[in-house]
């Protein structure tokens, strides 16, 4: 039953994404200053929000794991980090393409970009570390501690535009239309909102699928131990 709901949600979100793609690429006109490239923002901004939300929730569930020692929290945090990392890569790639067109460079060592990159490396290391531990309980404990530390880096990335002068365009929601000094076009805002919805639901479905796998994985591990103990 749960799996069916997941599939339905996944299909619905994919259909919404297709519909959004049509609107973004066909219906909406070019933006007045940035031209065609502004469309990448419909993916760039939601992708970052998805990954920050995922990392934030992974941080919260890691602390919960340490307090309650229930595997469901560990399962959630590893799934969230994995999906979050995928969206981080989407965010970095789309940002990089946008920067090539608008700034003329693929990358700049700007505070926000740098910290986003560091965060990406950190969570990749977290996943690597998990691979190197055989006992599920130890793995969950250590991973939770690392995830708690890693969250400081997410917090810095988020705060980076306030702490340091940065080239990264500021407060995010007003971005696409603001370059002209006005507010965002309502049509664009609606498209952005719907794409938020699509990406968030897709991420949620991916996390849920990943959680199932992770649970099965632990069951297989323990069955294997049981066989060895016989």
């Amino acid at each position: 039953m749960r799996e069916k709901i997941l599939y339905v949600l996944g299909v619905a979100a994919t259909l919404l994404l297709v519909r959004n793609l049509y609107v973004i690429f066909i219906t909406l006109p070019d933006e007045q200053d940035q031209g065609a490239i502004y469309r990448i923002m419909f993916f760039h901004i939601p992708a970052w929000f998805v990954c920050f939300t995922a990392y934030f929730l992974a941080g919260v569930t890691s602390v919960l794991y340490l307090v309650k020692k229930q595997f469901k929290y560990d399962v959630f945090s590893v799934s969230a980090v994995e999906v979050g990392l995928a969206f981080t890569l989407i965010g970095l790639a789309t940002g990089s393409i946008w920067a090539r067109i608008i700034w003329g460079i693929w990358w700049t060592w700007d505070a926000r970009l740098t910290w986003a990159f560091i965060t990406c490396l950190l969570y990749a290391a977290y996943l690597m570390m998990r691979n190197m531990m055989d006992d599920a309980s130890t793995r969950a404990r250590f991973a939770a501690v690392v995830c708690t530390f890693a969250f400081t880096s997410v917090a810095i990335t988020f705060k980076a535009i306030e702490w340091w002068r940065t080239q990264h365009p500021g407060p995010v929601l007003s971005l696409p239309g603001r370059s002209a000094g006005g507010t965002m076009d309502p049509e664009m805002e609606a498209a952005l909102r719907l794409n938020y919805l699509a990406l968030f639901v897709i991420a949620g479905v991916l996390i849920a699928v990943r959680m199932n796998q992770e649970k099965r994985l632990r069951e297989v591990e323990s069955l294997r131990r049981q066989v060895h103990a016989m």
Partner: protein
Amino acid sequence: MTPAVEVQKAWKYFGDYPALRSISLDVPAGTCLALLGRNGAGKTTLLRILSGLSNPSEGSVRILGHGSRDYQARARTGMIGHGIGIYDELSAAENLRLFARLFHVRDAEQTVQQWLTRVSLDRVQNSVVREFSRGMRQRLALARAFLHGPSLLLLDEPFTSLDDRAIALLQSLLADALKGGATVIMSTHQLREAMELATHVALLDRGKLAHSGERPVQMLADPTWLYRTYGDSQ
């Protein structure tokens, strides 16, 4: 009188695999419990929980009337694990001094000297442990475990890999400790050595407590009696 060790419905999971299943065990003060069972039955896991190295996943453990990680419980427990637990780069006296300080032994220096004499390492006390023979290291490890006059001794396979001299020493140390009112819990395969001291036995079988109680008389003549009577006859 409160038991030295009270374990109530303790479970320990490694992942989803239960290494200990609902263990309930009271060990009265002043007794010597031999913890028996095959490899992988959970003896080490249980001893690690009693030593405060590990927390039970469910259930509760009281050591000498305190929580298993409390200062009061830890300060009065002595332990011998799989490794000998002494530092190769330090000298014999430095090793003992370190643990005397960590356990807040009064008259630390005097106690250290007494123990060095007792395990016959007083003449080499300033040599680095790395230069010691195996037997000397084992005797030093015994001194480390008994140094602070513990009320509870947790020994994981203490007779395995000891030489004759160390076995005799350990047996006399344990006999003295029991005479002084201490409680001893040891896991062991060397049934003959253990049965001379054990007043109680507990048998673990694949994480479950198959039997616990006073040592049956039959075991003196036939140490494997318990396995055959209560063990899983698969």
